[in-house]
């Protein structure tokens, strides 16, 4: 069991940091392919998502390099095994690297022993192929056990699986603590894509259900503007989630490119990875009851 200490309203980032933006690239390629009604993987969805590792991830890496943006790459163990050259380039570029489950499993459907095994398997893949001991973790579909298992069976220092807050919390249990750095998809360029299209299942992420670029850019800018304004008085952060197979497509990548150009020009906007957010939270964050 664990205890949570939420952030206090007095929580502050280090001096000079008005709005941290954590560009979080979900590098999962075809791992979350939707099944057809007969349970077999949908070849259309598989192929569309596989673009992520073959092209999309490289394009996102280039755009981040162009803007000098350091972010967090959340990488599935299986994706790393199949396309190690992408992750090696990510590592070379100095981004924060974190585990994103083995094959994008829905941990919420898993018994604890399976979830532990998958966490350990994924951690081992990063050690074997990248020589990197990962300190961060995200599962988009956390179970009731996820935080306990991370505390008890790993030395993960931050988790980014929760959707229920806007700043980090401190999670204590099993004789140690981790930082929960929550995420949200209001700023997810993936939301340019309709997640559910009951008329044409089952390609739920099928990228033909997309918004036009000006709509996406407007959404990102309006979220940024609001957070930047509030950042003058209170701590805020902008988790900017993008997927290799969605935002990595050419026309959508330009939206990210344009947004970074826009956001960069404001004083106090800092692009950073979750490792640094975790460190700042420990250094200047305040947690507990008001």
């Amino acid at each position, binding site marked *: 069991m664990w205890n949570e200490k939420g952030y206090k309203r007095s929580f502050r980032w280090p001096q000079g940091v008005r709005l941290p933006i954590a560009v979080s690239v979900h590098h999962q390629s075809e791992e979350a392919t939707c099944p057809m009604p007969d349970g077999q993987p949908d070849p*259309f969805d*598989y192929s*569309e998502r596989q673009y992520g590792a073959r092209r999309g991830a490289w394009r996102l890496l280039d755009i981040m390099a162009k803007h000098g943006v350091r972010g967090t790459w959340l990488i599935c163990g299986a994706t790393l095994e199949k396309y190690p050259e992408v992750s090696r380039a990510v590592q070379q570029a100095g981004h924060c690297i974190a585990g994103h489950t083995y094959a994008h499993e829905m941990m919420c459907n898993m018994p604890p022993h399976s979830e532990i095994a998958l966490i350990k398997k994924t951690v081992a893949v990063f050690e074997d192929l990248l020589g990197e001991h990962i300190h961060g973790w995200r599962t988009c579909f956390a179970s009731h056990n996820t935080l306990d298992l991370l505390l008890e069976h790993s030395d993960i220092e931050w988790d980014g699986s929760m959707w229920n807050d806007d700043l980090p919390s401190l999670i204590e249990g099993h004789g140690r603590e981790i930082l929960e750095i929550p995420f949200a998809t209001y700023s997810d360029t993936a939301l340019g894509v309709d997640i559910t299209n009951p008329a044409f299942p089952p390609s739920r992420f099928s990228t033909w259900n997309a918004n036009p670029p000006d709509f996406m850019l407007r959404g990102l800018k309006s979220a940024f503007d609001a957070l930047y304004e509030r950042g003058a008085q209170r701590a805020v952060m902008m988790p900017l989630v993008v997927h290799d197979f969605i935002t990595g497509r050419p026309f959508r990548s330009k939206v990210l490119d344009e947004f970074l150009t826009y956001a960069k020009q404001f004083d106090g906007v800092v692009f950073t990875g979750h490792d640094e957010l975790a460190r700042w939270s420990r250094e200047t964050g305040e947690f507990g009851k008001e």
Partner: protein
Amino acid sequence: MAIEIKSKIEDVRWPSGVRLPIMLTFEHQAGEGAPLFAGERPNYMVGGAMQYGARRGIWNILELLDQYRVKATFFVLGTTAEKYPETVQAAAKAGHEIAGMGYGFASVRTASEEQERSIVRRAAKVLQDIADVKIRGWRCPDYRVSPKTLDILAEEGLVWDSSLLNDDLPYLFDTGSRKIVEIPFTTSTADKTYVGYPYPQRGGPDGLSSVWNNELDVLYRESEKAPRLLSLSLQTWATGRPASLRVLGQLLDRLLGHEEFRFAQCSDVAGWRLNSAAP
């Protein structure tokens, strides 16, 4: 996992002087792809919107392409060719490439090898009989390949397939005994998202225009350093509507008259890919 597509990413060399080939493709169906209402009752709503392509859309597109002297590729469903033979004949006569897209929208994903082969043969024969063309390329109508699709197409003598969505560039698919060129496409820039019922209509012609312009901007910039291909996968029933036809015209206005853009049919691109493979 039934499908494991791990073929190598290989770069392609375009003919000298070509910086960014432009490949316009149109899927031509007459509503066969629309889901029927319960009890196999016809769906004149979705099916009707798609039937527009065979009734009107393709004629509008052929006229526009003729005005701009641009050659494209049409994926034609066998049943549509039977119902609207004059549309396919006109496209072939105008010099556009005619490729196969199955028959009656039957999915091959779970078909037996024998069934799938008979679909390919039937579709090829219909297009041969009606438009006097020998097809060289293929797209699965629902974009869902079977584990044997590429083998069967290669064995049937086809040169290229365009049913996958996993790359920006064509690559060689080694089926074991034969090679076939895969020319991946994308639905992310599809006309139907922005202008076509029954898909969500987001932004209309203006949204579609900004998508295509963004795509062109990014690929053009990238093509300075590495080969790229601007490939648009369109529907005769969506781009063929007057309002979206204008968007295509505006794109052609932007592209025409520049040597570095070369309009290519799928077989041109497949041929360039095969030539690039030579040592």
